[in-house]
Every structure is written in structure tokens, then in C-alpha cells.
């Protein structure tokens, strides 16, 4: 069912590696050569990735562009790449941000360029791999691989306490990862024992339901096998998100990472946690998911409010933004575990939004850091006099990040809140306070840096943005407006997959396996149930997905109820 007949996903994943080879061959001296090579390869990757939404079939939750070959047959590991609505935009975001990061580090990074861009490209490979892998083993490999280049980016090109932050980042995430690995193994062996076939193919693994009867009691709370596995996954993903008690690596990592590092970290790496939840925890362990909803909700709300409050007292711009993303990711989790259509849709779109706006915020801090080599808010003030364009873009991004209607942030937050509200309006009420606080700290940051008189002489003649810097920000701004004003193209493509996930979570009967290992694939077809078109899209009674893939104004939307409608008026 690969719409394109060539392995586009692998191409995308390994193209950057080719870039690394090329860069390795270049002489150390030709700095621009290295830069251009890196740019060329990331742009190439972006262009290739543009094919995906073009060929993407939004009517189905099935895996698309599938590549599946046996890899380690003896333990049932397959090289299984695929893509569905959940990952579609995350992938696009990755390729998009990769280009931007390369551009934004054009001048800010001048030391040890070869390694720098090599690591950047390696990072892109790792991230894409994580999103594409539909085999647990493969997934885990990419999951860990991704850490290494990030570790170096922070550790080598970072600022003040970079060593500490780097190792902290690495240890936290690795720790979460290894615990998750145990969960993976548990699922793997349980499935093997149940069915007799040992495989890491996650859709095979989803076919059995894991026991949800309590097996052990810790601290007086009974835990079932599912719960334990769920918790193992949770630890892995929650640290990455990061959720409330596990968030402390994030401010350090963000603060000390180089701009590009922060952008990627906020833009993509954090999403892998939430992605993990929606890809594995929800569909694979529905009972446990239901079981843990309250916990997640409370943690998320704490994260939302707590993160926002802590932002208020930050003196370092980056640290402030880092905490703000703790708050935003709290929203994402909140929406996801509302476990209804709006919530999950919202959390997916919010992942993208956060990637765009927080990424852009880090770019903005980076730009000023390049000029002044400090991130202390107190150092600035009145910049909009000196740098009007800069401050304008800053303002737009800021408003998108605080969820102003018309910009992307609002779409996500609104959907999430709607979803949460459907489940429990007290939660929603609490979360809404997060929005208020969000406005408060963002505006405060903006005012302290951009407004007021230009007192600090050091800022007296800072240059405004040049063309290169504009090219990093403007595309993001455009995306922000697009998603904010016309999100349908984004939302409609994820519907089928979201419905599938929800169907799994709520144990709907009409679930169709999203990846039907049909006859074309080596790994033998179990059920032909949905391989013929039509069954492809799971029908979930609760929500009928919105009308079609509404490209272009769809008047059909909702005229029917209106009395004095356009027709009626003449």
C-alpha cells in the first residue's frame, strides 16, 4: 500500500546520513562549503517530504508508504517503516525545522563546523526514524540514537553549564528509555506466549489484549500487567514530554543548548514523548490508559499552572521559554487523555503549534543572544525602537504562543480545552487559568525586553534582522497564520488515525487494524478483513469525522439549520 512505489521514508531518513558523509569529505577550512552542504541536504529532505502530504490518503487510518522487510527473523524484528495521520505533520515539522535550524546556525556557530552539522543531520535521521518506525525494536533504536547527537550539540556548542545540562539530558532520557525497553520486552514476551509468534511489529502486538486483572499490589494500589507495562512506557515518554515531576532536565537543557539545539529540542524531541503516548500507550493498553486518566490529568494541570507560574520569576529568557513549554506540553497531555475526538485532535495540532511557536521563540532569543551574548532579561528593554521588525515578529510569535485566536496556538488550545471540558469541566476550568497566566508571563517578557526606554547603551545600535534571519522566522509566522485561520487541511488528514486510536481506547468493535499485513507484504496476512478499500477507515459511532477533506471553502458546512440563510435572504 505504498502510494509511491519507491521507499520514500527510508530515503528521507537516510538522506541526511549521506550528507554527513559528504561533509566528512569536505576540508575543515571550507566553512561555507560545509554550511551549504548541510543546507542542501536538509532542503532536499524537506522537498522529498513534500510528496507525503501530496500522496497521503486521509480517508484511511492504515499505515501508508509502508516499507517492511525482515531484519532479525530469529526474534521477529522487522524493518518496518510506515506513516499515518498521527505522524504526518510531525514528520513535516521535523524536516521543516531542520532546514530552519541549519539556517539559523549559519553565523552563530563557527566552531567545529564539520562535527556540528554532522550531528545536526544525524539528529534529523534519528527523529525521522522514530516517527517512521512501526517496529518496537527499530523504534527503540532510533529513540536512543537520537540522544547522542543532541548530547553533543548541548555539550559542545552549549553555553555556561553545558556539560552538566548535557549529561543530565542524556541520563534522564536514557533512564526513561531503558525502563521503557523493559516494558517493550514484557509486551513482546507476553504476546509471544499468547500467540506463539514472537514479533516486535506493533500492530501484531496490538492484536492481543493484555491482562488487566491486578497481579501485584504496590503501596496498596493493585496493578495489572497492563498497568505495569503502561507505567514503564509512561516513564519513558513522560520524561521526554516532559511531564510535571520529570521536567527538571528541560530548563537546563534548553538554557544551555545552542539555539538550533533548543529549537529542535522544543520543536521535535519533546513531541516524541507525546507521540509515544498516542502511538503506544493509548491503542495498545486501553484499560490501563483509562485507569490512569486521572493521574495524567492532574499531572498535566499541575504542569500547566505550575510551569506558567515558574515562568513569572525567570530572569533568563530561554529558561522562561523552557518553562513555558512545560506548560504547553501539559496542554497536549491534557487533550490527549481527554480521550475524545476534539481532545486528541487538539493535542496533535498543538504538538505542531508548540513546535512552531516555541521553536520560533527560541530562534528569537537566539537572534538576540547572537547580538549581545546574554539572555538576561534585565539586560534588554526598549528594543522595538532599535529593531522594529524583530519586535514585530516576536510579538506575532508571542501571541501565537499564548493562544490568540487567528493564530495557531488558539486552535490547539481551544480544541484541547473543549475535549477536556467534555470529560470534566473542572479540569478545563483549571487549564483555562493556564491561558491567563500564559498571557501574563509572555507579555511581561515582551514588555521588559521590547518596550520601555532604550536605556542599556549596549543595545543602542543593534542591527535589525538581516535577510537570512528573516528567512528563519517568516516561514514559521506564515505557518502560524495558516494553521490559525484555515486548519482544516491539517486537521482533516489526522482524523482517520485519531478515530482509530480512540476506537482502540474505547474498545469499539469496529476497529480495523491500521496496518493490514496483506498479501503484498512478506510477513504473511493474518486478517484480510480490511485489506479491500472501504473498510480502511474505521467508523466510530461517537464522532462522525467532519465533512471530507475540506480543501477550499465548503459551504456545505452547516447552513442547513439556519433560518435566514443566504438563500432565504433574497
Amino acid at each position, binding site marked *: 500500500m505504498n502510494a509511491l512505489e519507491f521507499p520514500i521514508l527510508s530515503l528521507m531518513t537516510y538522506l541526511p546520513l549521506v550528507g554527513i558523509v559528504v561533509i566528512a569529505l569536505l576540508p575543515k577550512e571550507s566553512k561555507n562549503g560545509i554550511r551549504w552542504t548541510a543546507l542542501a541536504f536538509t532542503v532536499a529532505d524537506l522537498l522529498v517530504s513534500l510528496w507525503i502530504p501530496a500522496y497521503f490518503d486521509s480517508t484511511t487510518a492504515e499505515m501508508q508508504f509502508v516499507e517492511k522487510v525482515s531484519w532479525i527473523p530469529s526474534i521477529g524484528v522487522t524493518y518496518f517503516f510506515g506513516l499515518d495521520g498521527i505522524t504526518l505533520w510531525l514528520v513535516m515539522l521535523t524536516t521543516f525545522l531542520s532546514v530552519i535550524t541549519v539556517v539559523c546556525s549559519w553565523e552563530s556557530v563557527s566552531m567545529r563546523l564539520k562535527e556540528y552539522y554532522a550531528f545536526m543531520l544525524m539528529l534529523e535521521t534519528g527523529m525521522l526514524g522514530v516517527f517512521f518506525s512501526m517496529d518496537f525494536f527499530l523504534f527503540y533504536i532510533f529513540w536512543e540514537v537520537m540522544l547522542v547527537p543532541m548530547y553533543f550539540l548541548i555539550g559542545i556548542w552549549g553555553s555556561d*553549564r553545558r556539560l*552538566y545540562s548535557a549529561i*543530565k539530558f542524556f541520563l534522564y532520557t536514557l533512564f526513561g528509555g531503558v525502563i521503557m525497553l523493559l516494558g517493550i520486552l514484557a509486551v513482546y514476551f507476553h504476546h509471544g506466549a499468547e500467540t506463539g509468534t514472537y514479533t516486535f511489529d506493533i500492530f501484531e502486538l496490538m492484536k492481543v489484549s493484555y491482562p488487566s486483572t491486578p497481579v501485584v499490589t504496590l503501596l496498596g494500589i493493585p496493578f495489572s500487567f497492563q498497568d505495569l507495562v503502561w507505567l514503564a512506557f509512561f516513564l519513558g515518554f513522560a520524561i521526554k514530554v516532559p511531564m510535571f*515531576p520529570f521536567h*527538571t532536565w528541560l530548563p537546563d537543557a534548553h538554557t544551555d543548548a545552542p539555539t538550533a539545539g533548543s529549537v529542535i529540542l522544543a520543536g521535535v524531541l519533546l513531541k516524541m514523548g507525546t507521540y509515544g503516548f498516542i502511538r503506544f500507550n493509548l491503542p495498545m493498553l486501553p484499560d490501563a490508559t483509562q485507569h490512569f486518566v486521572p493521574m495524567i490529568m492532574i499531572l498535566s494541570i499541575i504542569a500547566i499552572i*505550575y510551569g506558567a*507560574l*515558574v515562568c*513569572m*520569576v*525567570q530572569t533568563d529568557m530561554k529558561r522562561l521559554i523552557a518553562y513555558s513549554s512545560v506548560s504547553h506540553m501539559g496542554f497536549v497531555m491534557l487533550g490527549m487523555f481527554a480521550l*475524545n*475526538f*476534539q481532545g486528541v*485532535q487538539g493535542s496533535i495540532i498543538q504538538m505542531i503549534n508548540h513546535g512552531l511557536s516555541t521553536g520560533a521563540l527560541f530562534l528569537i532569543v537566539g537572534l538576540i543572544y547572537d547580538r549581545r551574548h546574554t539572555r538576561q532579561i534585565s539586560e534588554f528593554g*526598549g528594543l522595538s525602537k532599535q529593531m522594529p521588525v524583530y519586535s514585530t515578529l516576536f510579538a506575532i510569535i508571542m501571541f501565537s504562543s499564548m493562544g*490568540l*485566536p*487567528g493564530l495557531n496556538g488558539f486552535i490547539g488550545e*481551544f*480544541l484541547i*480545552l473543549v475535549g477536556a*471540558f467534555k470529560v470534566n*469541566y473542572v479540569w478545563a*476550568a483549571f487549564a*483555562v487559568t493556564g*491561558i*491567563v497566566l500564559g*498571557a*501574563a508571563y509572555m*507579555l511581561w517578557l515582551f*514588555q521588559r525586553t*521590547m*518596550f*520601555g*526606554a*532604550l536605556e542599556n547603551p549596549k543595545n543602542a545600535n543593534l542591527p535589525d534582522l538581516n535577510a537570512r534571519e528573516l528567512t528563519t522566522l517568516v516561514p514559521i509566522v506564515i505557518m502560524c497564520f495558516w494553521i490559525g*485561520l*484555515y486548519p*482544516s487541511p491539517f*486537521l*482533516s488528514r489526522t482524523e482517520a488515525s485519531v478515530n482509530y486510536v480512540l476506537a482502540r481506547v474505547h474498545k469499539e468493535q469496529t476497529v480495523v487494524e491500521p496496518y493490514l499485513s496483506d498479501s503484498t507484504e512478506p510477513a504473511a496476512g493474518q486478517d484480510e478483513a480490511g485489506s479491500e478499500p472501504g473498510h480502511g477507515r474505521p467508523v466510530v459511532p*461517537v464522532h*462522525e*469525522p*467532519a465533512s471530507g477533506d*475540506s480543501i*477550499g*471553502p465548503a*459551504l456545505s*458546512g*452547516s447552513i442547513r*439549520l*439556519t*433560518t*435566514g*440563510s*443566504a438563500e432565504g*435572504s*433574497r
Partner: protein
Amino acid sequence: MDMKLVALVPLLPLIGVLINGLFGAWIKERAHLIAVTAAGLSCLVAFVVFFQTLGGATLDWDVYPWLNVGDLKVPIGFLVDPLSTVMMLVVTFVGFLIHVYSIGYMHGDRGYARFFTYLNLFMFSMLMLVLANNYLLMFLGWEGVGLCSYLLIGFWYEKKSAADAGKKAFVVNRIGDAGFILGLFFIWTTFGSLKYTEVFAAVNPELGVGIYTTITLLLFVGATGKSAQLPLYVWLPDAMEGPTPVSALIHAATMVTAGVYMVARSNALFNLAPFSLEVVAWVGALTAVFAATIALVQNDIKRVVAYSTISQLGYMFLGAGAGAYPSAVFHLGTHAFFKALLFLGCGSVIHSLHGEQDMRKMGGLRKAMPITTWTFLLASLANAGIFPLAGFWSKDEILFNAFVRGLTIPWLLGLIGAFLTAFYMFRLFFQVFTGHFRGDHHTAHHLHESPPNMAYPLLVLGVLSVIAGLVLGFPPDHGLYHRYVAPIFEVAHESEAVVEHAVSAATEHAAGASELVMAAVSLAVALAGIGLAYLFYVKRPDIPAALADKLRGLYNLLLNKYWVDELYEAIFIHFGKRFCGFLWVVDARVVDGAVNGSSWLTMRLSAISSWHDMKIVDGLVNAIADLIQGGSFTLRRLQTGAIQNYILAMALGIVGMVAFYLFL
């Protein structure tokens, strides 16, 4: 012609925004050409649309689906009905005038282009707000105007006070919005839609009063934020930091009335929630008096007008609360005219005094600037509610309806408010325009009437302030205006039965009281206020000071606006800061610490200090660490380098294992 022209009304300003926004750097001093044209055209189109609606035609047009997520379907779409048309006219017309006015007022400012960009952006947002056909889109406009007011208040961002005021406005509004958005959620979960038509179609009393009360109260929280009612009014006075045209347009004529519009728009919901209606009425009445009292003693000319605005908005809510939505909206319109006029008047005064805003340094300006003086007088009269000016009709209706609905105490408050209004308006007038000039000579010589492009708007608005009421609002409750907007409030009227019933007792004797009497009363009250003002500030200028001395406490209380700002400051800012700081410490020390604790212990366990990068955690974790330290050293010290210790370890191991197996 096609009513879908309405799309042009917000679109034209948006185009203006794009042009000025992107190319402002090059357009610079010619920015007004685009901006004013855009505003003018959209005003024109607005009238075209208006004429089409006269036939009772309405339009509910979904342009394209904005949010289609499962059963949540929100279009970008317009609703054109009398209510929105009225609002649209007010916004575009006043907006246009103020655009024109700004050409002169903002002349030569660094941010000329920026200013007009913002102004157009505001027009756009405000029009989206009033033309939206669903609550979410209204919320978009709602936030949009908030944004613009933020930008325009902080227009002179280099003034810290301005920037602060901008932030304050936005954040306070956000608090209201939180309520608003929760209200939206309730609406959606209750009626399964956010489109007005669908929501109101789905309204029925069976759902029980509770849900309606919840929804409406939450919506009203939003309204209080936007329309500067108690307790969220604090931002509006500070908003005067912005350029005066902005104050006129946003903080008098249009944006602040959005709350009223929203309540009127949701009348179907409010009518089923009598309690909410009472709340609205009370808050309105209280605000009216509260703000008026503060206005009595302020010396900043714009602040007086600002508090008067708050107070007038209070009247509108009183009207809405009384179920007299048409009157509320009517007052909204008239108020838009004369309050805009007042502000523009202040503007030209300040303009000619080179930014001087303290009334005590003014006086006797009527010689220098006649047009301003006369228009200002008209506006003041209108605001004071003197027959037959615009203000009279609308305010009178409101008070009457309040009385009829048996809201006796709010009605009384309203009357007191009317008296105070008249007093402070003329205190202002007399102090500024009569008597002799109290400023320094330099300014005295440069006193001048404003340039024509500032004067004409004054005249136009002056005319309107005079006639609007009479033409549209006579006879009360059945004027042209009322007949025009009637269809929307049909629902309201029939379901008034509910309200009626709820307060029947009061209605009985109210019915007797004829409207004329009421009118007379309020008029008398107003005149009394003027008289007192005349006495204080023309005849016996010494009295106020004496009075101030006598009632020092009260005076200070009013002068310092009841110390509300300080109160909020103390509660929210200081305490909040402390709390956040505390959390931050917690985060750095405990949460982080607890996790780092493990690594810390690990390192102590291996007695490593060289890895100084990791020195972070103290407090609790530290204690534990020190506790363990002793034992940890031994662990490393085990590696003594002395062979026989090693052998001993082996031997011990063997003993342990053997014993373990043989005896355990």
C-alpha cells in the same frame, strides 16, 4: 445587490493592515491615505448592506469551515441582522471619523504608519466581532480587539506607564476571557453548536434555569472584563495612556461596548436566567455610580472622561439587565457619538496644550478654540442626559425600564449616577473652557483651534449627538431604531413573560407611573447636577477646596479611586510574585533535587568530588547524602591495595555463601 458584500466590510480594513503593515516602512507619512480610504470604503459598504437589511432581510453565511473537528463545527461566517448592522454602522462610521481625526492628531509621530496599521487592524477585529455568526468567531474578534487595544495603549511603548497599561489591559481582559471561553464550552456542550442561529433555535426552558445561569454568568464575566465593569474595570483608566483618538475609538465608542453587544446578542439565553439578569443590572448600576463618584475628583481631563465611560457602560448593562436590550444598544450607539466627541474634544484640547492633561492648568479655552468648546458643550449635555440630546433618550429609556422591571434600587442608583454625571461633566467643562487660562504663558500664546481634519469630525459628531436621539429614539421604545431592531428581540419580548412573572409585584405599580414623569425626574436630577457644578466652579470656586478639606477622608478615597489598584497590586502582583518565586525555588531545589538526589548519592557513594559539574542539590537531599557519606567511603576504601585484604574479602565471601546455604 448581494448582501455578501458584507464580507468587504471587515476585509477592506484588513487589506489596509496588510499594505501598511508590510510596507509601512516605505509608506511612512502617506499611511493615512490607505488606512482612511479603507475605513471610508468599508463604512460605505456598511451603509449599502444596511439599506438592504431595511427590508428585513438577514444573512447567515458560512464562508468556510474553520474548525471541523468531529461534532464541533465552527465556520468562518457572517451574520447580518439589525443588531449586527447597527453595531457595524456605529463601528465603521465612528471609526472612519476617528481615522480622519487621527490624520491631524498623529501628524509627525514616529509610528505614523504603525498607528494606522493598528487602527485598521482594530476596525477589522471589531467588525469580525460584531459580524460573526458564531460565538467562537466572535471570540476571535473579541481577542483581536483586545490585542489592538494592547498595541494601541502601548503605542508609545517607550513610556513605561504606557507599556504597563497595555499589559494590564490585556491581562485583565484575559481574566474575563477565561470566563467567556468557559461559557462557550457550556454553550457547546449544551446546545451542540456555537452558531447563534443554531444555539438560539435550540434554546428552551426545559433545560432548567441552572445551566442558563451558569452560561450567562460566565459570559457576563467576559463582558465585565471587556466593558470595564466592576470588578475588572481597573484597566480602562490606565488605558488613557494611549493616543487620544484611540481612547475615543476603542475605549469609548466601540470596543468597550462589545460586552454590551455580546449580552444583547445572547438575550435569548439571558432571558431564561433571571438571576443573571439581576446580577447584570446590579453590577451595571453599581459601576455607574462607583465610576461616577471617582470621576468627581479626578484632575486628569481624560481620566474624568474615562470614568464617565465606565459609568455610562454601567447604564448600558443596567438596561440589558432590565431586559431592555434595545435601549441598552441604543444607549450604546448614542454614547458612541457623544463620548467619542468628548474624547476627540479632549484630544484637540490636549493637542493645543502640547500634551497637557491636567485640568487645573487649563481654563478659558473657549476663546481660543470655539469649535471644540461648542461641540464639547453639546457632548457634555448629551452625556448628562439633557433633553432633547441623544443621551437623554437612551438613558431615560434605560432608567424607565429598570424601574418598570421593579429594579428599584438599581434605578435609584441610576438616578444618583445621572446627577453625578451631570455634575462632573460640567465641572470638567467649566474648569476647562470657562474662566481664565491657568497654564504657563508659553502655552498660553500657542493656544489654537485644531486643524480642519480634526475639527470636522467634531462637528459631525456634534450634530449626531444632538439629533441621533430625537430622530431615532422618539417616541421612546418605539422610535425608528426600535422598530428596526425589534425583530431580533422578538424572542426577548415574548419570553419577557418569564421575567415579568418573576417580578410581577413590582410591575403592578410601575405600570401606573407614566414614562413622562420618569423623564422629568431624571431631567431634573441632571439639571440639578449642572447647577451645582455651576455653583462650585463658576460662582464660588472656593467651595470645592473647602469641601475637600472638610471631607478629607472621602476626598482622598475618591481621589485614589478607592485604592482598588493598590489592592489588586498587593494581592495579585506582590503575593503572586512571592508565590512564583517560592515555586521556582521548590523546582530548583526539591523537584530537581529529589531526582538529582539519586545521582548525587551515587557520586557520594563513589566518593567523587572531581565531577564538580554536578554540584547542585542541597537541603534535604544533602542531609541524606552526608548521612550516607561515611558508609560510602568504606566502600571505596575497601580497595586498599593490600593483597591480604582482598584475600580476606574472598574468604569472607566464602564464609557468607557457605553459611548461607548450610544454615539459612
